[in-house]
């Protein structure tokens, strides 16, 4: 997958997201410290690192779910340009989070309404932004289920009856239905077996390039980063120790920790 980085889009315009010196402390402990980066439209950024290195904390700060102790997260709003998301009203931030953003949880049950049907899960965002036409919601839902390779005849089944991989795809469809520009993914493939992982990654990669999605993918699996991401941040103890183009970082790691991480990947 050495071609991934060559397809990285170059945008001269303002970035979609600008993370500036974000620090999140939990009392004495550090969640993440002094993280800065820009993310452009259509760009996929992976955040890798060991367990407890602050990946998810950082993701939550960026996704508006946890206010950083210091630093700013600016998002390029459609009509206003870069704005600090934590200065938006709560109503606007939540609207942003369910229209222009998506969030894919590691455990699909965290991101799905497990007691309503698959169709309602996908249609929820449409209804939340005011779509009141059942037939149209239904058509859109079927379309999205088809696009994430789910059997549309299972539209009225509860997600609890779906396999893990299907649940994860359903969660992705549910997020994409409002055509977000930015997706946050927290270990999207970690709970899946290897064959399913590969298919899901394939799907994600296809959707991201097709829809021009920007994404921030948290993963501890460097293969996921290699396959999906244009750029890669390596985190350790809450700090970014190395960043750059994915292939560059993985093929020529500079920081001792990155070298350790790369060398410890099992070669099948």
């Amino acid at each position, binding site marked *: 997958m050495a071609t991934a980085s060559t397809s990285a889009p170059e945008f001269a315009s303002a970035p979609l997201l600008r993370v500036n010196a974000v620090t999140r402390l939990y009392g004495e402990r550090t969640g993440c410290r002094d993280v800065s980066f820009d993310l452009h439209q259509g760009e996929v950024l992976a955040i890798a690192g060991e367990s407890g290195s602050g990946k998810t904390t950082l993701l939550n700060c960026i996704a508006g779910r946890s206010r950083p102790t210091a630093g700013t997260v600016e998002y390029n709003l459609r009509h206003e340009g870069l704005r600090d998301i934590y200065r938006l009203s*709560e109503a606007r931030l939540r609207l942003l989070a369910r229209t222009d953003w998506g969030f894919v949880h590691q455990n699909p049950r965290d991101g799905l309404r497990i007691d*309503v*049907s698959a*169709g309602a899960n996908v249609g*929820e965002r449409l209804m*939340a932004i005011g779509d009141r036409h*059942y037939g149209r919601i239904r058509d859109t839902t079927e379309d999205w289920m088809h696009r994430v390779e789910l059997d549309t005849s299972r539209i009225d089944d509860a997600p609890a009856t779906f396999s893990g991989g299907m649940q994860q795809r359903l969660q992705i469809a549910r997020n994409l239905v409002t055509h977000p520009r930015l997706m946050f993914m927290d270990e999207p493939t970690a709970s899946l077996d290897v064959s399913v992982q590969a298919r899901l990654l394939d799907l994600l990669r296809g959707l991201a390039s097709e829809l021009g999605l920007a994404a921030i993918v948290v993963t501890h699996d460097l293969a996921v980063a290699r396959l999906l991401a244009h750029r890669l941040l390596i985190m350790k103890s809450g700090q970014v120790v190395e960043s750059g183009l994915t292939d560059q970082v993985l093929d020529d790691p500079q920081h001792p920790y990155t070298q350790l991480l790369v060398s410890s990947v099992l070669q099948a």
Partner: protein
Amino acid sequence: MNSPDHAAQVVGVHADDSAPAGAAGTTSVQRKGMAVTAQGYNFAYLDEQTKRMIRRAILKAVAIPGYQVPFGSREMPLPYGWGTGGIQVTAAIIGPDDILKVIDQGSDDTTNAVNIRRFFAATTGVATTERTTDASIIQTRHRIPETPLAEGQVLVYQVPIPEPLRWLEPSETETRRMHALEEYGLMHVKLYEDIAHYGHIATTYDYPVRVNGRYLMRPSPIPKFDNPKMDMNPALQLFGAGREKRIYAVPPYTQVESLDFEDHPFEIQTWDECCEFCGSKDSFLDEIVTDDAGGRMFVCSDSDYCGQRRAGQAHGGDAAAAQQSQQSPNVPGVPGVSDTPAAQPAETASS
């Protein structure tokens, strides 16, 4: 002020009403003003501070239609689920000049209604009635009277669960935030599920409404048949949830809109039958099983409405009365038979 409707009370549960009053040392229920019949209790049971507290909550609720105002719900001398919220609201607003009607599922003579009416008769001495038009306060469980309400009347609902989003979102913090931010898409998810599974919106009672274009509200478990009556109603509608400690309100002439989809519009229940007793085709009907051989009949759920219609048919319209008597031999236990053209003049005669 109370004398004109005295006749109406006599036919009702007068005997029930006088029982506790007698026990409390007064011989019969005084329908005139101030005579408090139960000894040792404040007027309307609750102490004045509590009533003020509830009134403040009611004022706030009226000021923000559909918004659930928390209040310090008190222990009442009956269990939760029996209408403790409605009783506290009624106790806070009732005055000596009020005339109280209490219904349970539309009926004046079921246990819940009889006991709550008796409770207020004993603790306030106010006049009680079964006639919707005579009442100034109507406490209700699960119905809105068929007779249209008028300005100056107050309808008090007993509410078991005030939060419309509760079964969809278990967290109170989250539902409050959703109300604050007007995030009501989730309610449509429920209606979507109904259509997906049953082909139509299968929610038949406690059907969610939007009040004044703003707050999503649970109308308490009234049938959705009654939802249109809430819209632009000239009466003040107050809702009390005792266990959940919430009061909310729909002020007079407030828009109340039932949620739906464009291609699955809101509809109320309809029946092929009409009421076996009064022949009404446009009231909410209860189905009553009459034997173990499939016999059943449909009667008005609103006992006062049905009774008034029958009284009107007995006295008034000669043609209607004649047709009514023709129809009556058909009635017992045969479903559908009463669904004849004969019922229709009877209906128009009294309404």
